[in-house]
């Protein structure tokens, strides 16, 4: 073991890189997994990190094998072959990977605490089986990849392995094949992302990394080709540019890691664009859904909510009632109601700049011609008189006796209403008016209307006490007072369904074509129906209901209880307040006219506008027993409900990818630093000074930086355009706004800029030539080793 440790210490550079790489990949994967588990989203977006790790590790394996080339050769000379040789080769990387895995788990646990605490406001769960399994699998895969990277060294001829001369690593057929495979894979991922409707498969999830690696590889090929082609031009520009093009054409230290840097930048662009898209969507969708700056749940009945706003805010400048029937399974009946008379005053410019602005501006057009009569009442008083009644009939019994029963001249006058607590109720007065000219007045207590109720209809019927009676009986309801509201101020019409019921009674010869209701100046004349009460409808129920429509063919105007009304489409929009991209919006008062109780599935809310006094807000809270939710809270709950944390999980993946790329870049530079300094020393022996070497370094860095930035921007744009729409960043609710995943400037530019800075900083350190570290005598010292 001590020999192993001594050997590991002598190769600490490459092994440290392996430890760090494992730490970053395992740590990053664990954080993403744990965060996704806590947020209830998918952890599959960590796939690009695992791919980049898989690409970065083989070079470390090959470097370790090269560093131990002589040892391997001597081991083979001693007869160590097969598994023993593999064990000999892999024990050091295994120790490094194990160390990196353990450290990665610790870092992952710590990162999870930070991420869940910061973004989810939640405590982190202990590491689950999945995280541990992922860490173990990553470690195992890393060891296999290191072994594959080292395999080429094992296959070298023994003579080469024991030779003191170093042989360069060449691009093998396998390497070229894998490069082409990455490009093809990127193309297939893009195709599948656009064509598949279901959950994205692994290739699509790997797509961003594949696109980045492909663009990075293309950038490397372009660098090599450009450098070779540009060499004759540089010959006229001095030795600095010439050396720069030669290094770009042939050196590995900075050029090869470009692939990973570009890939990490592309993943970063995708993550940033996704985060921006989700953020914008959440912002816009929360506005669409909330209806205003502050909302509160207001119980079961839309009418009650509307009454509350009338009572607390009679001027109509601060509070507004809304009702939403989501109906996500029958989109044709998806509908919402708003108090259109208060819309402009309360909502104001809340929807300006959003997709629902046009519809919001059109809401005042929803106000209908009629509204339900609303009253707070404790008594119902009716006065009625008889206009016509069939005269008493005389009947002769078989024994010759005659009898003349009194005519059934008792009338029931009933009023139907919906109370503020969304319960339907009715109350009736019975009056005895048995002869023409007879007049009576009656009064009864009304329950459930003290806090306000909406009159939905009346019924006038003959009180026959279950005796069959179909003789003529015409009454004049001279007064019908409900808590001070004169119901006879409304215009009433007979409900056709009552007439139909009477006509269908085969025991009567009833002709429904007569005139049964007359609205007279002195009262309401009603020709009572045989054996059934005549239901009376409020005027305006057959008036069309103005609606705004979004993406509904054959829209229905349904009242609060779900019954049909006549529809009049006054406008169409792509997005409606409260409803989003599908639904029908109408005025709450118009929908309440003649309507029964609000259907139970309705979400009833009150909206408070900007500047609503706190005292008013407190009163509403007290009345409803709920708590106000500002727009930010709506936004947060929307984000949580639809998996908005997914974008953050992807951002964590992108951060880990960036660290992998930075490590690969740094490791590549460190690996070749000695060689680079030796090259500069060789040039100085020839009389080429540090100034020229620095000039070459700057030219090389400038070219690489421009190419990396260009490839990162191009790759980011391609990845966003082709892949982002297919990634599971958000679970869009039904009829929501679409998620706009089109490329934006700064999410593409920032990762490209960071990639460029990484190349400049790391490459700058690599190309920082100092007099002492590149002295020509270095070559002499090397020979002494």
């Amino acid at each position, binding site marked *: 073991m001590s020999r192993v440790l001594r050997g590991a210490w002598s190769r600490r550079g490459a092994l440290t890189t392996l430890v760090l790489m494992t730490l970053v990949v395992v740590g990053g994967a664990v954080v993403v997994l744990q965060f996704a588990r806590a947020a209830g989203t998918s952890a599959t977006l960590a796939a690009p990190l695992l791919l980049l790790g898989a690409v970065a590790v083989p070079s470390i394996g090959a470097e370790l094998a090269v560093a131990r080339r002589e040892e391997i050769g001597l081991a083979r000379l001693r007869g160590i072959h097969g598994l023993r040789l593999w064990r000999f080769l892999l024990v050091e990387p295994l120790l490094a990977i194990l160390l990196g895995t353990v450290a990665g788990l610790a870092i992952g646990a710590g990162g999870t605490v930070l991420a869940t605490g910061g973004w989810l406001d939640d405590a982190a769960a202990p590491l689950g089986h999945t995280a541990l399994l992922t860490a173990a699998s990553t470690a195992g895969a890393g060891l296999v990849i290191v072994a594959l990277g080292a395999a080429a060294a094992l296959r070298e001829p023994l003579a080469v392995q024991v030779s003191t001369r170093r042989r360069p690593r060449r691009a093998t057929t396998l390497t070229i094949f894998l490069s082409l495979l990455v490009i093809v894979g990127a193309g297939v991922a893009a195709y599948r992302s656009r064509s598949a409707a279901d959950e994205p498969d692994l290739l699509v999830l790997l797509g961003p990394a594949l696109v980045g690696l492909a663009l990075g590889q293309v950038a490397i090929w372009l660098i090599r080709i450009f450098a070779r082609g540009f060499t004759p031009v540089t010959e006229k520009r001095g030795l600095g540019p010439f050396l720069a093009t*030669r290094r770009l*054409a042939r050196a590995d230290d900075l050029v090869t890691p470009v692939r990973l840097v570009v890939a990490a930048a592309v993943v970063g662009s995708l993550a940033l664009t996704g985060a921006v898209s989700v953020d914008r969507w959440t912002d816009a969708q929360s506005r669409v859904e909330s209806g205003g700056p502050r909302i509160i749940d207001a119980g079961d009945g839309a009418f009650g909510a509307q009454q509350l706003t009338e009572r607390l805010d009679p001027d109509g400048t601060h509070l507004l009632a809304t009702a939403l029937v989501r109906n996500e399974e029958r989109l044709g009946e998806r509908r919402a109601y708003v108090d259109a008379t208060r819309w402009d005053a309360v909502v104001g410019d809340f929807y300006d700049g959003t997709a629902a602005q046009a519809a919001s501006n059109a809401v005042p057009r929803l106000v209908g011609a009629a509204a339900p009569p609303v009253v707070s009442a404790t008594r119902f008083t009716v006065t009625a008189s008889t206009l016509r009644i069939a005269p008493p009939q005389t009947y002769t019994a078989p024994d010759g006796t005659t009898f003349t029963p009194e005519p059934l001249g008792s009338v029931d006058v009933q009023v139907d209403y919906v109370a503020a607590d969304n319960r339907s109720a009715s109350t009736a007065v019975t009056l005895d008016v048995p002869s023409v000219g007879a007049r009576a007045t009656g009064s009864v207590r009304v329950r459930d209307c003290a806090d306000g109720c909406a009159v939905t209809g009346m019924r006038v019927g003959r009180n026959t006490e279950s005796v069959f009676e179909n003789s003529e009986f015409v009454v004049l309801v001279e007064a019908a007072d409900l808590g001070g509201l004169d119901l006879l101020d409304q215009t009433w019409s007979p409900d056709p369904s009552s007439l139909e019921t009477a006509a269908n009674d085969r025991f009567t010869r009833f002709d429904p074509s007569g005139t049964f209701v007359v609205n007279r100046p002195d009262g309401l004349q009603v020709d009572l129906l045989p054996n059934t009460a005549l239901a009376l409808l409020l005027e305006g129920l057959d008036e069309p209901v103005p609606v705004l429509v979004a993406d509904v063919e054959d829209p229905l105007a349904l009242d609060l209880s779900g019954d049909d009304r006549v529809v009049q489409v006054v406008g169409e929009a792509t997005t409606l307040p409260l409803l989003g991209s599908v639904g029908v919006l109408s005025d709450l008062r118009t929908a309440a006219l003649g309507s029964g109780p609000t259907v139970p599935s309705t979400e009833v809310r009150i909206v408070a506008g900007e500047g609503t006094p706190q005292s008013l807000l407190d009163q509403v809270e007290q009345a409803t027993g709920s708590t106000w939710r500002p727009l930010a809270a709506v936004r947060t709950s929307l984000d949580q409900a639809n998996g908005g944390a997914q974008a953050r999980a992807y951002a964590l993946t992108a951060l880990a990818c960036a660290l992998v790329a930075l490590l690969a870049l740094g490791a590549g530079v460190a690996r070749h630093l000695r060689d680079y300094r030796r090259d500069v*020393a060789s040039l100085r022996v*020839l*009389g080429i000074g540090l100034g020229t070497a620095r000039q070459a370094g700057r030219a090389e860095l400038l070219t690489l930086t421009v190419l990396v930035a260009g490839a990162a921007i191009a790759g980011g744009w391609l990845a966003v355009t082709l892949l982002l729409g297919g990634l599971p960043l958000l679970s869009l609710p039904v009829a929501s706004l679409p998620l706009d995943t089109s490329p934006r400037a700064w999410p593409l530019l920032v990762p490209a800029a960071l990639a460029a800075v990484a190349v400049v900083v790391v490459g700058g350190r690599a190309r920082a030539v100092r007099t002492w570290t590149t002295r020509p005598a270095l070559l002499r010292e090397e020979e002494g080793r």
Partner: protein
Amino acid sequence: MTPGTGLTMSDITFVAGRTLLDDVSVTFPAGKVTAVSGPSGSGKTTLLSIAGGLLEPTSGTALLDGQDMWTGSGDPRPEVAFILQVYGLVPILSARENVSIALRARGVRPADADEEAEAALARFSIADLGERQVEELSGGQMQRVACARGFVVGAEVLLADEPTSELDEGNRAVVLGELRAEAARGAVVVVATHDPAVVDACDLHIALDEGRVLR
């Protein structure tokens, strides 16, 4: 080239952990080929490095026509050309470019430098390897490229460290011929070697052992 008096090293001591050179005084005359021999670790390379201005002696002076060889930066003076034992070839350049760049560093136009480089490689029978990368060459081929580079610049001082270690007899003869030609041109030519055949072919011989001059 007008021959100078030569390169004079007086009382050179060099200590780097241990004493590599101890009070060495030698003169390398212009127009002659001087061999410096000795076993491995005797100080041959150190002596050449100080002579060429790559190292500053701990004490003593190395002067060429009265001018100090040490420039202060570790860079050799422009009058000096090296053929290093480790060759010192630049891997990112081809064989021809490794030769031509030495000329371009001295102000020769690229086209002319390429032409002279081709001719120099041809003298060592490796003109066909001009486009090969350094890593594709064998040890002997690399040594010949290093030699071609050292000879092509026509320096006033040529310091060659084990220039024939990997060459066969034929190529060794070519190198010795080139060394002779350089000396005939009036340059100071110094060859560090432990090959007796090379020593015999030189005009002068200095033997070192453990950092001291034996003769």
